[in-house]
């Protein structure tokens, strides 16, 4: 009995005693809650996930970068300057002097050449971003090379638009890794890939301290960073999946920034004066993919009707609550050539007459594969309710993310509600998936979104290819506007929203930078009052 009483007392004491006073986070450290469980690798030649890209953006330097507020301004990072040859096929970069890797090795043109070659040789998911310029494992060492310590030469196979080539180099695959360090950990000719998956060999403003998959990621400042050491000496990111838990941590002051708050949390912190919001339009688009294998959806009138059957305003304002803006063309706002008009709005009568013209005055039944997260389900339900008004019976098939995606990729869906994020900052990234489909057969070699929806893009495929070779940026932009208008009118996509990222921060956090993609979210300018 005595033992039980002791246990009881202990248990109660443990459960009720105020155990420690809460303190603010230290002034020279940035603490974030962020769902980083999508990180599967830390090797910049393989990283293709959102939070992985953010890691690389803060720890590795690239040859060039772009201004977050005006992406048409491309500036040098590791490359001080560059030249494009008359024929447009040779790019020569002058590498900045005096940059050191975290290992203490000097960064030279040889490191830059090795890093780009390595992307092609390893051939991981993002390798095509460079590979599309004609580099292969066989020729890359002849096409990308250093002539001396400060000169890097890159020879592409066609006279591409210079903006296309340069934008691709601003992507994660343009990160420069420490050749000596990486090769020191090479196993069986893997170019240090296995090692770099969980380690670090860069020159960026922060270096990796420790990554524990699915739990946390911590960085320390690079005190010798060539462009000025960051004020934050440590950055700690804790993986917190649950948005409500992130909100509590933030309101309590245990963290400085919460990255994944949803509509409910954003509404409930709006009255808290200690918290401020930072938002930035991202490149990701929310859209419906309409399979052309479905007899109803392959009817152009039906496709057009469905574009009038989304409550764009309602979903944007209530369900996505500040985390999106209405955007209907396939190039997100901010991209070269983006078409920012939104011709469609909710119009039941118009949709009814279009359906009648199509021969379905009483509607039809169709299914939609829907990822079972709160906001996606809510969007699907709003669409379901709207469609019911014209007699279309929409059956929502909920599933986990990878499950719905597997079905979509196998072309087994009727409708898929999804999100598409651009791979790099050039318009070709989205054009080559929404408006390009060279082979619509089941065993095609390339499977862009147009293919997934079994849509034969016709002459748009050739027009998309042509746009990559237009060297005049103004003309090139106009070509993309035409492509977007065509897809808006005829395509099997109901593009609805462009995502806005919102970071919720304590009031004393300044200069946290959100860019148009995750690899331009920067921690190096952050200061705390």
């Amino acid at each position, binding site marked *: 009995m005595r033992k039980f009483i002791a246990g009881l007392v202990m*248990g109660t004491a443990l459960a009720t*005693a105020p*155990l*420690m006073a809460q303190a603010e986070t230290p002034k020279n450290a940035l603490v974030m809650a962020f769902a980083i469980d999508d990180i599967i690798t830390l090797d910049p030649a393989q990283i293709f996930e959102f939070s992985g890209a953010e890691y690389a953006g803060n720890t590795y330097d690239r040859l060039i970068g772009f201004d977050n507020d005006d992406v048409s301004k491309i500036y040098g990072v590791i490359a001080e300057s560059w030249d494009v040859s008359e024929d447009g096929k040779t790019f020569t970069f002058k590498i900045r002097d005096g940059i050191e890797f975290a290992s203490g090795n000097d960064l030279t043109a040889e490191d830059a050449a090795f890093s780009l070659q390595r992307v092609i040789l390893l051939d991981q998911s*993002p390798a095509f971003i460079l590979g599309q310029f004609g580099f292969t494992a066989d020729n890359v060492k002849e096409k990308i090379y250093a002539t001396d310590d400060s000169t890097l030469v890159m020879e592409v196979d066609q006279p591409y638009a210079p903006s296309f080539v340069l934008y691709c180099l601003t992507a994660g695959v343009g990160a420069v890794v420490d050749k000596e360090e990486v090769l020191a950990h090479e196993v069986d000719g893997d170019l240090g890939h296995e090692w770099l998956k*969980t380690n670090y060999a860069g020159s960026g403003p922060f270096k990796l*301290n420790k990554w*524990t*998959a699915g739990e946390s990621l911590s960085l320390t400042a690079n005190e010798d960073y060539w462009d000025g050491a960051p004020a934050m000496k440590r950055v700690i990111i804790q993986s917190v999946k649950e948005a409500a838990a992130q909100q509590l941590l933030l309101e309590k002051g*245990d963290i400085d920034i919460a990255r994944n708050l949803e509509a409910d949390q954003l509404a409930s912190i709006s009255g808290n004066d200690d918290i401020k919001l930072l938002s930035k339009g991202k490149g990701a688009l929310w859209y419906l993919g309409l399979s052309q294998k479905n007899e109803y959806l392959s009817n152009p009138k039906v496709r057009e009707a469905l574009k009038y059957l989304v409550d764009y305003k309602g979903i944007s304002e209530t369900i996505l609550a500040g985390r999106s803006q209405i955007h209907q063309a396939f190039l997100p706002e901010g991209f070269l050539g983006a078409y920012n008009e939104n011709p469609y709005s909710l119009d039941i009568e118009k949709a009814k007459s279009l359906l009648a013209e199509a021969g379905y005055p009483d509607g039809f039944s169709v299914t939609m594969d829907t990822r079972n997260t709160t906001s996606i389900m809510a969007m699907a339900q709003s669409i379901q309710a709207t469609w019911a008004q014209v007699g279309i019976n929409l059956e929502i098939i909920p599933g986990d993310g990878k499950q719905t995606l597997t079905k979509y990729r196998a072309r087994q869906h009727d409708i898929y509600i999804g999100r598409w994020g651009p791979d790099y900052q050039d318009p070709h990234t989205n054009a080559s998936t929404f408006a390009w489909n060279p082979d619509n057969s089941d065993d095609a070699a390339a499977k862009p979104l147009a293919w997934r929806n079994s849509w034969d893009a016709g002459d748009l495929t050739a027009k998309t290819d042509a746009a990559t070779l237009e060297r005049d940026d103004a003309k090139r932009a106009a070509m993309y506007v035409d492509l977007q208008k065509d897809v808006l009118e005829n395509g099997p996509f109901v593009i609805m929203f462009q995502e806005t990222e919102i970071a919720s921060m304590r009031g004393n956090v300044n200069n946290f930078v959100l860019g148009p993609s995750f690899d331009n979210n920067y921690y190096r300018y952050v200061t705390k009052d």
Partner: protein
Amino acid sequence: MSAVKRNKRDGRNRARFASGPTATVLRLVFSLAITFFGLLLVTFLIGRVLPIDPVLAAVGDRAPQAVYDRVREEMGLNLPLWQQFFIYISNVLQGNFGQSVLTSNPVLDDIKRVFPATLELATLATIIGVSLGIPAGVFAAINKGKWPDHVVRVIGLAGHSIPIFWLGLMGLLVFYMKLDWVAGPGRLDSFYVDFIEPTTGLMLIDTLIEGDMDLFWNAVSHIVLPASILAYFSLAYIARMTRSFMLEQLSQEYILTARVKGISEHRIIWRHALGNVMVPLVTVIALSYANLLEGSVLTEIIFAWPGLGLYITNSLLNADMNAVLGGTIVVGAVFIGVNMLSDVLYRLLDPRARR
């Protein structure tokens, strides 16, 4: 998991009839091997039947088809199913459980990391659950039909019907946000997450090993709430079972005899009746402990607690089969281990089994 238990019990029964210690051990090993093999086979088949493409976890949605095809081949997914399973089993026999696609780590390293988090939480929850649940059950039994009985029953009912998700968030809101009695989600304050090098992986012990009392108390303040919430659920179950076992014992003739002999009521309840109740109760506690050791996914999500439940669920949703199979083996081993432990305790507690 009941299949494991049954299999294991079969093994034990057979072992009892065997002659000689060597045969017993052999039979035990054999039955364990069969159990694990069956477990792996079923998990493997379920994993492959899932409509989830395992290559997606490795290359992402945006990889070109050529990369996708190459990785698919590297993962051995182009081989017939039986061959894939055969390769996996022969690797396991050599002690190689493969690599997790999601974490780029060997599966065993991952499990060494996530299992202690769950173990720590489940153990503390069980200790709290037992130390409050048994007295509550006894108390209810001796006051059968009166208000203390009703109170315990209502608490028990609530423990079974309130969703843990809600309870966890409410707990955080009240005890963390409003009252400031405990710390928030995570095993340590976010700022400290990379301070501790795991030795045992048990935060309460590792912080002591490092001799950092601030961190120790920080870890305590983080584990109290999730452990209490998990404890509530096992408490409810343990109290209910204790009550019914006690009622059964208290109506037995030996209790009447004891009362006639004039033994104090206190001694009758806590020594005589509870002594006998402990025997079946050990099985109840063991089962509830084993359930907690599987990892409670929802609790782990709300409290950002990187444990086994979250690991296996996440792996399964990505069809990361090496990780799922590795996790399944651990869960199976835990069930078998806890069962064996409860057998041993059973023998110690039950005078008849000692003979």
